[in-house]
Structure formats: C-alpha cells, structure tokens
C-alpha cells in the first residue's frame, strides 16, 4: 500500500514574531514530520498574519491564533475547517462557538508561578499586567487567575497594568513602575504576565536600587531566551506547553480533514515546566549588608569583580563584610562570587554548543586554566567532562548497577526528518 497521500493546502495564521507562536508552529511541524499527512503550508514570509481576502483563499484548512480578535472575526464564517489556538478563558462564553480550540491554561500558568513564589518563602504577592485591550485578553485572564488565587488565600492583591510603552514615554513608564514598586510592601513576589513585562520591571528594580530577589522576587511567563539575555539578573519563568498545543491543533485539523466531526472540542494544555533562575530565588531575610552585597554580586560576578568592589558598593569595610558573610552564609565574599561564576558556567556548558574558552571569558574567569582548576575542585570534573555529561537531551541516566548495560539517553532531540513513518 504505497498510495501517495493527498496533499492539503493549510494556512497558518499567526504573528510568529514571538517565541510562543513560533513554538506552536514548530509543534505543528513536528506533527507533520511524524505522520503521513502531507500539507502544503501557507504563511507569510515574515511569519506575520495578513487577513484581507482570506475568505477567498482556496485552501483546505486553517490553524489560527484566536487571541487576535481580527483573526477570530475574519474566520467566524469560514467554510473550510478551522482549528483555533489561543488563551483559556475563565468565562465559557468567551470561547468562539463551533470551533475546536486548543488553549494555553492561563490559570495553571499563574498558579505554577504563584506556588513557586510561595515555596520560596514569600507571603505577599503582586501582579504586573498589561493595559486592558482586545489583543491581550490573555493578560486579563492571567490577572483574573492571580486575583482568584489571592481571594482563595485571603491575601491582598496588588495589580499594576502600567501603560502601553512607546519611545517618548519610556522614561515616564519606567518612573511609574518605580513608583509602584516603591509603594508595595516588601519583601514581595511579583508575577509578570509575560517575560517581556518582567524584563521591564526587573530593569526598573535595578535602576531604583531595589534588590532582586531579596526585596522583589520576580517571575515571568514564556521562558523567552531573548528576555533572559537582556536581563542582568537571570529571569525565572514559567514554560508554556506551546509545542504540545501545535501538535494538538495539527492533530485535530488532520482529523477534520479526514472527515471526523469534532465540533467544539476544547483542549487545555498545562504549563510544560518552570525555569527557576536567580530572579525568584528569594531566601528568608539576611542581614541588609549581606543582601545588598549579594545583589551586587548577582549582577556583576561574571564581570570579574573582587571583594573590595563589593565592600565599596555596600559601603562598609572589607573585613566587616567578610565577617557578616561568615556569620550569615558561612563562606567568604570570594566564595560567593565564585559560586555565581560557577553557576553561570555550568548553565552555559549544559546548553552544549559553546567552547570552553568562551565560557571562561563570559563567566569572569581570568583564564581557562583557572576555570579548569575551580571545576576540578568544586565539581570533581573538568569543564569538558561536565559538558559531555550534561549537554544534550538532558535525559542522560547515570545508573550504576552492576552486570548490565548502562542506560542510554532517550533520543529526545531527534531530527524531525528522522521521525517520518516508514512504510
């Protein structure tokens, strides 16, 4: 049976300039690579969505971002099968009628962020949202999720929507954010509705001299690598199940193209994980000098700072700072700086595709040899061995049972072309 499958013409209507939409599309591609389905995909070359005339397009099916009200309106009378992708709604009536809908579970995204902040010891919480708009109803849904969690736990809510930012108003927006930050009780955990939003707030904290995460512990949503690079303190973030949403949407459309009637099937996808980094690693109160010193170290460890500079920043003598560190943390200032450098280095190495010399340079080690020595002393292995052990699919088992073959990693980074069905 080697009949050539019928090719379908499928349009993907997304504004794929954001990590979330791109991941959804990559999930769709992963589905196609693993099935016999043959789709000719139609999407604009800049991956943005152009709606005019879509109703005259001769295609077989559409997967579209229904967070965009214009898309939803344009497709409401579509005669070809449509699968909607978007945010979940607390209120049932906000879902479009008669369309299968694959949603990111906004409540669970916020709950995961909140539970994490609670576990980090915080007792007061705020939400940094976006101005209300039809284009970001998901932000309001996340705000509502935050509000209902506060109600459930009888905690006073603090919500700030801020302004839409544009160049002439950047400074003013920042000032307003700082004003809001200063008005909040401390310490406080803040959930930002996106990483982009979290990044702005993190910047405001640094400019205002508010310690992160000692005074403000911050977490975003999206796990956007760009936002991580653009912040001086690594940003914690909730990872959406966007790829799974893409796979699900493609599967549903496939079913419809094969004649299945799935009506308004709705599938909510929970978060895929949480990336815990420095911005939310709040610890119970330490001496203010130690908190201030660690705040400085967190920002500048990888620029090769020395104990003297930290003491200058805190405004006390080197020896007093050292004694505070011994007392509160049981280590020297130098140890603490080194720990941050080591953390940064192991994080880089775990990503796999970096050279050892680059890692040493960007993590503030004076030489490759020195980094090598620190690794041997602290981790008992060389940077190269560390990289070999951790890089890749992240599923490497190191089982030490006798008499059997060693476990081997699951091949989770399969090239999509390897997933094609064999006949």
């Amino acid at each position: 049976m080697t009949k050539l499958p019928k090719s379908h013409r499928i349009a993907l209507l997304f504004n794929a300039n954001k990590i979330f939409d791109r991941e959804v599309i990559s999930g769709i591609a992963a589905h196609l690579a693993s099935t016999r389905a043959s789709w000719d995909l139609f999407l604009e070359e800049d991956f943005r969505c152009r709606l005019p005339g879509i109703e005259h397009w001769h295609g077989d099916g559409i997967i579209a971002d229904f967070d965009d009200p214009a898309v939803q309106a344009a497709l409401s009378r579509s005669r070809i099968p449509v699968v909607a992708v978007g945010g979940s709604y607390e209120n049932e009536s906000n879902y479009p009628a008669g369309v299968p809908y694959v949603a990111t579970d906004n409540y669970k995204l916020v709950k995961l962020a909140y539970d994490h902040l609670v576990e980090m010891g915080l007792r007061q919480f705020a939400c940094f949202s976006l101005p209300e708009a039809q284009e970001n109803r998901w932000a309001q849904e996340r705000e509502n999720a935050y509000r209902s969690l506060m109600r459930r736990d009888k905690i006073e809510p603090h919500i700030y929507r801020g302004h839409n930012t544009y160049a002439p108003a950047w400074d003013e927006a920042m000032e307003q954010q700082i004003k809001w930050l200063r008005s909040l009780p401390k310490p406080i955990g803040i959930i930002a509705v996106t990483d982009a939003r979290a990044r702005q707030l993190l910047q405001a904290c640094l400019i205002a001299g508010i310690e992160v995460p000692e005074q403000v512990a911050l977490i975003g949503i999206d796990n956007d690598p760009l936002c991580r690079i653009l912040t001086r303190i690594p940003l914690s973030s909730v990872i959406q199940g966007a790829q799974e949403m893409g796979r699900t949407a493609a599967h549903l459309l496939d079913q419809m193209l094969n004649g299945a009637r799935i009506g308004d099937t709705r599938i909510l996808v929970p978060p895929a994980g949480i990336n815990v980094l420095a911005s939310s690693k709040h610890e119970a109160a330490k001496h203010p000098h130690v908190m201030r010193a660690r705040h400085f170290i967190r920002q500048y460890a990888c620029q090769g700072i020395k104990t003297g500079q930290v003491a200058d920043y805190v405004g006390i003598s080197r020896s007093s700072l050292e004694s505070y560190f011994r007392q509160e943390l049981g280590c020297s200032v130098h140890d603490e700086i080194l720990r941050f450098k080591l953390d940064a280095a192991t994080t880089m190495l775990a990503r796999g595709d970096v050279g050892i010399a680059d890692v040493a340079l960007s993590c503030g080690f004076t030489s490759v040899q020195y980094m090598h020595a620190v690794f041997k002393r602290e981790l008992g292995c060389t940077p190269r061995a560390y990289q070999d052990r951790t890089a890749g699919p992240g599923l490497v088992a190191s089982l030490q049972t006798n008499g059997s073959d060693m476990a081997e990693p699951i091949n989770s980074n399969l090239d999509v072309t390897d997933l094609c069905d064999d006949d």
Partner: protein
Amino acid sequence: MTTKPSTSSRPPVAARLYTLRNALDMRVTISERGAALVSWLAPDRYGRIADVLLGYTHAGSAPLFDGVQDGDNLVVLRLDGCTVSYQLIEDGSLVVEVDGAVPSDAGLPTYFNLNGGATDVGDHMLQIDADQYIEIDQSGELLGRANVGGSAFDFRQPAPIGPRLNWPDPQILRAGGFRHCYCVKAAGRKSGSLRQVARVYDPGSGRQLQVSTTESGLQFCSGSALDGVPGRRGQRHNSHDGLCLEASSGPDLLAGSAQASSRHTTVYRMGVQA
C-alpha cells in the same frame, strides 16, 4: 491461587514491611504482601518530602513473600522459586530485580503521583522512547502493533498526560484512558540490556522519575482503573490520581515468543529537575 504462607512460624496475614533509606532523605517501603512497593518518600525541588506512591490499600489477597533485609538499602523477597529484590542506591535509583515467574496473583501495580497526591497526574509531563504501542480490544486483549506517530500515543517528545486523554482517539475511548503497552526495545539492541525508556516530570514539585528496564515492553496506565479505589487514608481515589509505568513482556507475547524472560530488571530513578 498460591496463598500458602511461606513460613510456618507466623500467621499468614502478618505481612512485614521493610524500609530502605539513602542519603537523599528517601525512604522506600516494601511489603511482603505481593512483594509490593507501598511507599516512597522523596524530596521535591524545595526539599519537601512527600510520598510519591499512591497509597491504595494493599490488603487484598496477594500472596505473602518471605523477606530478608540486608543493611539500609537492600531487601530480598522470596516465594515459590520467585525472587524479587529491591535496592535503593545513592543517586535515587530503586533497582528492582525479578528472578523466576511471579505468581499470577502477585505483582500489584505501583501507581506514582509525583506531586504527592496534591492533584491528579494530568499535568505530569511524560516521555516514552517508543515508536510503536500495542492496540487492545474491549477486554484488554492485545491486537497488534501500531505506530505512535501523530497520535495521542506519541510521547517521543515530552507531553502532558491530561490533554492527551481528550484527544479524539478510539483506543483511548475504548480503554477509558491509557492502559497500553509500548514497544520500547530499540531495533538492533540485544534483548536483556538495561536502557532508559521513559521519564515523567511534574512541573509543580520539580520531581522527575526516570524508568529503565531490560524488558521489551512498558505498560503505561493513566489510572482510569483507580476510580473509587480506597486510598491510604480511607479516601476514595479518582481516575488519573496516579500513573503506572511497568516493565512488560507484551511485545514478546504478541510475537508469540513463549520464552517469557525469567529474569528482568527495572530501575526507577527519582530526582528533581531544577
């Protein structure tokens, strides 16, 4: 039914419990009743300890094994030529070795819930390294191999369990969820070698379970059979309160190779993902 007591020195109802420990603050409890795993206390991302096994009542009529504990981390249980050993090692691995045919009425399923039972396992992220699974009929009989590609059964990339239960799929509808055997033996691998075949991760607690086995199959149950089953504290479980990932010889049985391996090893490794 083999319910005869294996020693005459004590009444048949008295099942002793054995507790294994390691330096990661883990405690694993095994019962002589069915040589079953009854509890596994393990820390989460924040160091909080919880039981990651479902505490459903193990009373039942499973036969009684005779156990011997050797130090803090090894227990060996025997019954009628069947030996089951559990070894807890320092990296969080529990090595389960079975030698000899397990009496058919033993072998109680082990249900995991990595968040300690706070919620069901719908949000657990599952990954299974298998291109094929075995379809079943109404009564659970094995029908034949099917490709996972593009279906709800495709867990080659990590995916949450809950949403997959809602995919329109006749096999899932028929079984009320997942209770299917995955073919986890990679082509060209010699049989009997231990390899990692699955991973479960709970985003909330950060706990992660990796499963390795020497068997050709891995039975994945999403817990649809749990509805109404009494739990440890007398409460009734709901569907999907726990999940099962057990080594199985399903693919060999399907292929008609009668030589059910008499000796196999499964390793459950519990840990946390930052």
